[in-house]
């Protein structure tokens, strides 16, 4: 086990370098000079050349100064090295847009996105696991066929469509006003509200975003759960358990469930990047001030330090997630740490 742990952690190092290198190069090699953009925005169309020669000189000087301030004048590999160093101290510099520290901007957004995604994870697992168990133990029943069908159809529903439909039909367009069209709390929310009113107002705002973030994870997980239950149900030891007269409930919940939950552990890590992508869409549509919205806005305004930091932080979190789920897998299934792992 120790050697497996060591091996896994050592292998993370090249992966970490690969992630940071790709992220850095993608953002920094894209055409469009942030200094030029800033000059165009701040000093009035200077970049397009509609400015007299002597003023152009002043603009160039300001741009050079600004580049030096952010270290953009150094060669790319030096910039990469500096940035890599900063990752370890969590100092991602300051935002190009408002000169606020990047790390502060990110940490103030984390709770919102975390709340959204944790609720949605909870919904996904609480609904999908029991449904998967039921489907597998009642294979080919009408409920099983219906949930399989629904999961399959849900999987094909584009998130942007579901969200737009909810916005048009449920959020006070010409149709119903069941849910608010955006934000996390009502505009007239006040501190003197009772805690119950605060919570229900919050839940009212969170309901749609959480449901929308959950449905496709739910569709996937319930199917995985069903398949993995069915696979375990076919094993010999289950037959043995049954033939020695154990109650079917004990067989299912004690013998089968434990083993078929193993693959679901790994899913947790692979769900994370998808949820970050989903957060971008949901937070943009429902104007929720989370990481997704911050990321999208920063990309549009070419706020490189923020984009770089977000990509790096989320990738590294996912990497750690993969490591943890692999280790958990190795704990529950000792064969993995010994045998050759075939992904």
């Amino acid at each position, binding site marked *: 086990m120790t050697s497996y742990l060591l091996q896994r952690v050592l292998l993370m190092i090249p992966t970490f370098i690969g992630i940071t290198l790709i992220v850095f190069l993608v953002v920094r090699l894209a055409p469009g000079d942030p200094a030029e953009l800033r000059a165009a925005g701040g000093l009035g169309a200077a970049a397009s050349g509609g400015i007299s020669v002597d003023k152009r000189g002043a603009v160039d000087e300001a741009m050079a100064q600004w580049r030096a301030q952010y270290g953009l004048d150094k060669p790319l590999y030096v910039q990469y090295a500096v940035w890599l160093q900063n990752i370890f101290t969590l100092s991602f510099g300051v935002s190009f847009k408002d000169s606020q520290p990047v790390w502060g901007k990110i940490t103030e957004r984390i709770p919102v996105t975390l709340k959204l995604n944790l609720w949605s994870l909870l919904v996904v697992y609480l609904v999908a696991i029991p449904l998967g168990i039921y489907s597998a133990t009642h294979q080919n029943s009408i409920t099983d066929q219906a949930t399989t069908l629904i999961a399959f159809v849900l999987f*094909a529903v584009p998130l942007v469509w579901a969200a737009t439909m909810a916005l048009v039909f449920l959020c006070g367009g010409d149709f119903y006003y069941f849910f608010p069209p955006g934000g996390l709390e009502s505009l007239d929310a006040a501190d003197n509200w009772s805690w119950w009113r605060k919570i229900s107002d919050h839940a009212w705002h969170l309901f749609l975003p959480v449901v929308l973030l959950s449905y496709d994870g739910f569709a996937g997980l319930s199917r995985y759960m069903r398949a993995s239950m069915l696979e375990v149900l076919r094993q010999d030891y289950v037959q043995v358990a049954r033939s020695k007269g154990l109650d079917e409930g004990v067989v299912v919940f004690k013998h089968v469930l434990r083993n078929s939950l193993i693959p679901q552990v790994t899913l947790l890590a692979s769900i994370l990047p998808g949820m*970050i992508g989903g957060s971008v869409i949901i937070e943009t549509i429902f104007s929720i001030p989370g990481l997704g919205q911050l990321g999208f806005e920063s990309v549009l305004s070419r706020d490189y330090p923020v984009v770089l930091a977000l990509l790096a932080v989320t990738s*590294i979190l996912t990497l750690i997630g*993969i490591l943890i789920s692999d280790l958990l897998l190795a704990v529950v299934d000792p064969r993995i740490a010994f045998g050759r792992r075939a992904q």
Partner: protein
Amino acid sequence: MATESTEGGGLWSDVWQRFKRNPVALTGFLVVCVFVFTALFADFIANDKPYYTEYKSKSYFPIFRSYLVGMKLGQWPAELVNAEFKKLEGAKSFFPPIPYRPSNINLLEPLEPPSGRHWFGTDKLGRDVMAGMVHGSRVSLSIGFVAVGIAVMIGVVLGAIAGYFGSWTDLIISRLFEVMLSIPTFFLLITIAALLPPSIFLTMFIIGATSWVGIARFTRNEFLRIRNLDYVTSAIALGGTDRKVMFKHILPNALAPVIVSVVLGIAGAILVESSLSFLGIGVPAELVTWGSILHEASTTTYAWWLAVFPGFAIFITVLAYYLVGEGLREVLDPRLRGLR
């Protein structure tokens, strides 16, 4: 696939025979065919030019003519240059079922609900939504195929090399898989697409370049399994070069599960493209796509027709590809039989 006819025509006709027996998968296949047909013949389904027109006692075929003009093989007759065929005096014209192009702006009819004139209504600029959807299918179709084509090329080659050579090569390439799995693909995609100038070709390339990991891992696992089979050992013993053994002997047998992930990948690429154009990045602003109509719906929430129809088109197309993929999985992968 180009290799199938030489390597195993028998297998593929057998696959088709069994695929045909699954009505659900077959329905999906038919929907995909309709979708491809719509994309290929969009000009003949939604066009502001007629198929046929009789003007000043002469006959013309304006849609065909516009192709000729487009290819610089012909010219418009003098009296029809920039003609608006719908307003031609005394012309007898036979128009396509949707007599609009997505670029036809009509500011007198903004945000019209569905009616006999505009079956799916109009958008803010008075453009016909159905015409936009018919032509938008081209974007979806080409993005799906080209992006997955790129992903297959990268994925199959990397997966084959990793699975075939194993040991150190595998270790290094597997790190690359891990890198790509860790970076949130959609966010990376948004970043690249937003930083580059908007272009449909770049978008195809970016989607392809970020979505090959699944295919690569499938290919790798298949190669790992097949590499140790006796026939491969004998092929190597007989002096087959690495490249020949990999692509001529192993690949055809590894293809079956890969094809399933290719079909599912097309659906994924269509979904991703619609999200990108929903967010307004990747494709040029003036290009009407299913996602761009949806985007307008999210800002003009009283225009329900802008939300319902294009989203349903994405949904049905993606569902159809999923059905085809599932059907193929059942006929191609005997190990999965009885599992579902």
